[in-house]
Each structure stands twice: as structure tokens, then as C-alpha cells.
């Protein structure tokens, strides 16, 4: 489904509306006199059972977008200046805070990067898991503990019954991340946002945690937004990818097409900078220059100072995210690029 032109506000209850749609979202951080434009018009959507990978380097606005969706943006200084977020057809930005809070945990949940710091050090993991049920469903302490053990089994923590009273620091990194996943899954939400869930883990553990997450997502038919800067992590699990740069989506595509034929110079740069086994002995490619200063985003295309293909128009006109077409002129499903010269990039 091409996500960019669906209109959830008009979509009926026939299930055609995506689970989540972010429309033209703008977020600013205002500190004293300086304004940091972290998100500058992001559009993306996720359907139930679908995995969207949001790819981008630090400061590209991928996490801020997620915080805006969850409603946990630090405000002030953060502020949503424009845009809408539709969740199950409802514009959640117009909901009062206590309604938003009821969504969190129950219908949308988030997994954070560093599980050790994301768990409360003074409470046992069983208590923290149980809190989900006690706070949202009013279960008793005993019932909640039984549920916690069940959840720990579910995310395959060995000896759950014995370890339920242990504290976060007594678990290994991978186990802690499993506990975070268990907490997020506790109430079987419809949407999970995982913000770099495997960045803090070893490569072998990364694969286990990603597999677990993907499996549970399929089982519960949840929508999953996977935020990452690691192209390797997303290849196996994502259905589609949105690449972010300087607070904008620069390219969206189904995952394998993006790897095969990127339609934006930035995406191509990212792909070229992955070390490859078949190119031994060559110097690794790196995108030159630095990520843009979000207080002074360059005019035109934000990527132009680092782009080898940049021409005059790139320095003046902001490129719109437009559908990408194949050689025969038909639109490629799910593909869009925000490059004036996407055709050259795609074919070149």
C-alpha cells in the first residue's frame, strides 16, 4: 500500500486506514534564543502486522518523531508546531493528556535503547513487569507477579520463576532487553516503537533479540516501528524503510528495493559505507562532511553540502517527497524520494 496519499481522516471503519499515520509533523526545540528544528515535515505510516524501519544518523529526528507519537516529548523545550498523528483513525495530538496516557502502554508501547538505564534500579524486574498490570488493569500484587512470570517465560528468560525477584543489574544485557520487550508487550499493544533496541548489545545477542521481537510482532499482529542507524539490523525484519535526514524523510521504499536500487544520494551513501566481504582490501566509503546543524539547516536540500550530485537547484529549492516511477513510467509501489534528481540516482 502506498502510504503517502491515503487519507485516514476520511477513511471509514472498514480497516483501510493505516494503524498509524504521521502527517507533515514538525517539532522544534526552543532553548533561550535558539530554535532547533528537529523534525521538519515527516510523513509515514504503519499498518497492523507491518514493520517500518526508520533509518537515520544521530540527530536526524527519528527518535524525536517517535517521542512525539508516544506523547513523551520533553515539553518545554520541545513543541509540535505543525502536523497530525492519526492512530487507529483518531488524531491523537488533539486528545487531552490523560487520554493520551491511557493509550501509552495499553495500545502503543516503546522499547528503549539502553535497557539497564530504562529499568528502575531499585525495583525488581518482576515488580516492574507486574506494574503494567497493576496500573492499567488493577490486578492484585499476586496476580501481577504470576503475569510477570508468564511474560518472562514468553520472552524466554530462563528460570523465570526464580529470577522474578531479581533486580535489573543482576541480568545480562540481552536479558534486560528481553525484559523491556516483555514490559512493552505486556498489554498486547497494537503498535510498538523500538528505539534502537539492539544498539547496546553484542552482535550475536542483537540477532536473538531482533528475532524474538519479529516473532512476537507476527504473533500479536502488531505494527512495529524500528528506529535504527544500522542497515544490517533492518534487512531481515523490516517490510519497508523510511530514511531520515535533517528532520525529513528523504526516501521510502520496500526494504529489498531500497537495498537494490536506492533513489536518493544519501541512501546510496549509507549503503556504500557498509563494509562488504566481497570488497576486501578497498578503503571503506564514507559520506563526506558532517550532519547539518539543526539550528541552521542549509537552504534547499539539506543534504546538498555533502552531495556529489548537487546542482544549483539543490541549493535553493527544497525537494518534495515524490513517488518514484520505473522505466516504463508506472509508479513503483511504496517508493518515494526527496531528491530533485532521483531518476539519475535510481538508474545511475
Amino acid at each position, binding site marked *: 500500500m502506498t502510504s503517502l496519499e491515503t487519507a485516514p481522516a476520511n477513511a471509514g471503519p472498514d480497516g483501510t486506514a493505516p494503524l498509524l499515520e504521521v502527517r507533515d509533523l514538525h517539532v522544534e526545540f526552543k532553548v533561550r534564543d535558539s530554535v532547533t528544528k528537529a523534525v521538519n515535515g515527516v510523513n509515514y505510516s504503519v499498518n497492523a502486522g507491518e514493520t517500518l524501519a526508520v533509518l537515520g544518523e544521530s540527530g536526524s529526528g527519528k527518535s524525536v518523531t517517535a517521542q512525539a507519537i508516544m506523547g513523551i516529548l520533553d515539553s518545554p523545550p520541545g513543541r509540535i508546531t505543525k502536523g497530525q498523528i492519526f492512530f487507529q483513525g483518531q488524531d491523537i495530538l488533539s486528545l487531552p493528556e490523560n487520554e493520551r496516557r491511557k493509550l501509552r502502554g495499553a495500545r502503543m508501547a516503546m522499547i*528503549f535503547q539502553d535497557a539497564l*538505564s530504562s529499568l528502575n534500579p531499585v525495583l525488581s524486574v518482576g515488580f516492574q513487569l507486574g506494574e503494567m498490570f497493576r496500573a492499567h488493569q488493577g490486578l492484585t500484587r499476586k496476580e501481577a507477579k504470576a503475569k510477570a512470570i508468564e511474560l518472562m517465560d514468553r520472552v524466554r528468560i530462563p528460570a523465570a520463576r*526464580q529470577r522474578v525477584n531479581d533486580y535489573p543489574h543482576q541480568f545480562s544485557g540481552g536479558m534486560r532487553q528481553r525484559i523491556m520487550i516483555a514490559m512493552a508487550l505486556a498489554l498486547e499493544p497494537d503498535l510498538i516503537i523500538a528505539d534502537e533496541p539492539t544498539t547496546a548489545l553484542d552482535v550475536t545477542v542483537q540477532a536473538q533479540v531482533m528475532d524474538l521481537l519479529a516473532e512476537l510482532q507476527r504473533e500479536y499482529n502488531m505494527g512495529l516501528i524500528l528506529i535504527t542507524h544500522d542497515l544490517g539490523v533492518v534487512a531481515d525484519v523490516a517490510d519497508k524503510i523510511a530514511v531520515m535526514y535533517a528532520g525529513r524523510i528523504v526516501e521510502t521504499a520496500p526494504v529489498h528495493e531500497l537495498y537494490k536500487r536506492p533513489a536518493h544520494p544519501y541512501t546510496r551513501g549509507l549503503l556504500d559505507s557498509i563494509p562488504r566481504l566481497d570488497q576486501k582490501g578497498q578503503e571503506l566509503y564514507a559520506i563526506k562532511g558532517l550532519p547539518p546543524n539543526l539550528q541552521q539547516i542549509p537552504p534547499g536540500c539539506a543534504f546538498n553540502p555533502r552531495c556529489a550530485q548537487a546542482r544549483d537547484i539543490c541549493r535553493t529549492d527544497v525537494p518534495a517527497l515524490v513517488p518514484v516511477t520505473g522505466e516504463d513510467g508506472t509508479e513503483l509501489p511504496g517508493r518515494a524520494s526527496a531528491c530533485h534528481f532521483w531518476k539519475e540516482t535510481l538508474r545511475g
Partner: protein
Amino acid sequence: MTELVTGTGEPAPAPAATQPGAEPSVARVSQWADIRHRFFANKLAVVGLAIIVVLVLTALLAPVLAPYDPLKQDLTATLQAPGGKHLLGTDALGRDQLSRLIYGSRIAVVVGLASILVALTIGIVLGALAGYFGRWVDTVIMRAADIFFAFPLLIGSIVIILLMGRGVLPVVLSLGIFQWATFARLLRSQILSVREMDFVHAARALGAGRSRIIRKHILPNSVTSVLVYGTSNVGIAIVAEASLSYLGVGVDPEVAEWGNMISAGRGFMGVKDFMWTYPSLAIVITALGFILLGNGLRDALDPKLR
């Protein structure tokens, strides 16, 4: 770990370990055992704890331990030197010094603990409000704290006692009122750092409400240092309480209380030194006990050593 899967059809013999409730014992050091171990490994902390235990027992068992009625005057045996029938001598009215010292521990324990409890209660509530809500709430509470900081403890307490009259309750309240500001500040600064930690954001992302976040996530992670500081400050409160009595604005001068005893011995300095040295020693040792205990707790609980 093995998971025993028993088929639903056949009633497998259930070993004790698989029965719910009877959990297999796994040798694991609990959090508290860990802390206890660190505390008792610290010699000075144990000394502090011993002092406090002796003090509390003395206070509780005062009627049993004291050889005489601390208020009973014996004008035939005034200003007796230590030894003989009166182990620590008698004062100018012939009251047994040891008995007065023993009964004095009651006032010290009650006033010391109660005044810190008052200070902690005010300090934790206001500090938590200031730290979590910030903005104008923070400004108002912290400026109020500044005002209380500006008063020296004794001067401030004397003012309150003058307004309320003498007695144990006014002493407790006045010492509490002039000590909350430190606790509030300490807690606020802890909260400011804990508030930004990932697990607080995570709790929000999982739907925890404001009061739950404060109660379950922020306070337990920031209140430890305040409680430890409170423990150390019990000693300071006891010194302050004795000072008030010494100055004649504390508890009634008749009452067996260490400050009163020093005050009574003031006129005999250099002549009958036993009259003020023993109560002074009692105060110093008690204050030291609470400070050592507080330091021991701090070291045992300090997560940096973990």
C-alpha cells in the same frame, strides 16, 4: 534451566521443585544481604550502631537501670564526688547524677528522632514538589528554604519556643522547622538528576501517570541520600536540643536532661567538674554514634561502590 513439561493426560509424579510456591532454592545473594554485609564490614559503622543500640536500650530501660529517682533530692548528700553510693556523684540538690544521665537519654532519643522526622517529612514533601514540578513551584519553595537557611538553628528555634512556650513538643517542632530546608534542597537536587533518567522516560512511555512516576520511580531513587543525611543529623539535633536546655529555653529545668545537667554544673566549673563532664561526654558520644551510623549507611548503600 530445565523446564519440566508434563503431558496433560498422564499425572506425572511431581517433584517438590515443580510445585508452585515451593521454589527451588537457588543460592543467590539478595540485595539486602549485600548491603548488610557491606555495613557490618565497616568497623566504625558497627561502633556507631552499637552506641545507638546502647542509647536506645538505656532510654527504654531507664526505670530499671537507674539506681535512684532522678528527681529525688537528698539535701544531706549534695555535691558528692563520684564513687561510693553515687557512682557519678550528686548535684547541688543531692540528685543522683547517674540516674539523671540515664533518664536524660530518653529526652535525647525522643527529641533527636522526632525533630528529624518532622524535618524529613516537611523536607521530602516540599523537595519532591520543587524537584518534580519545577518552574514557579520550585522558585517559591526554594526561596522559602533560603529564608529558613538564613536563620541560625538555635536563634530560629528560640524564636519559635518563645512563641509556643517551653516543653518537649515546642523543642521538637522548632528544631524540625529549622532543619527541613537542607533536606528539601538535597532531595530536589537528587530528583533533578533522576527525573532525566531513561527509566523515567520509559515509565512514561508505558503509561505511568504523574503520581506513580513520583512515588515508584523518582522518590525511591533519590530519597536514600536524604535518609542517610537525616540519620547523621539526629546527632546534631540532640546537640541543639541540649544547647537549648543549657540556654534555659529547652525543656523544663527540673527535668533530667543532659543540657540541664551541664547548665547546673556551669557554676562549679574547675571545682566540681564531674557535674558537667559526664553529660557532655554523653552528648558527644551520642552525636558521634549517629554520625558514624549515617556514614556507614551511606557507604553501604552507595550505588557507586556496587
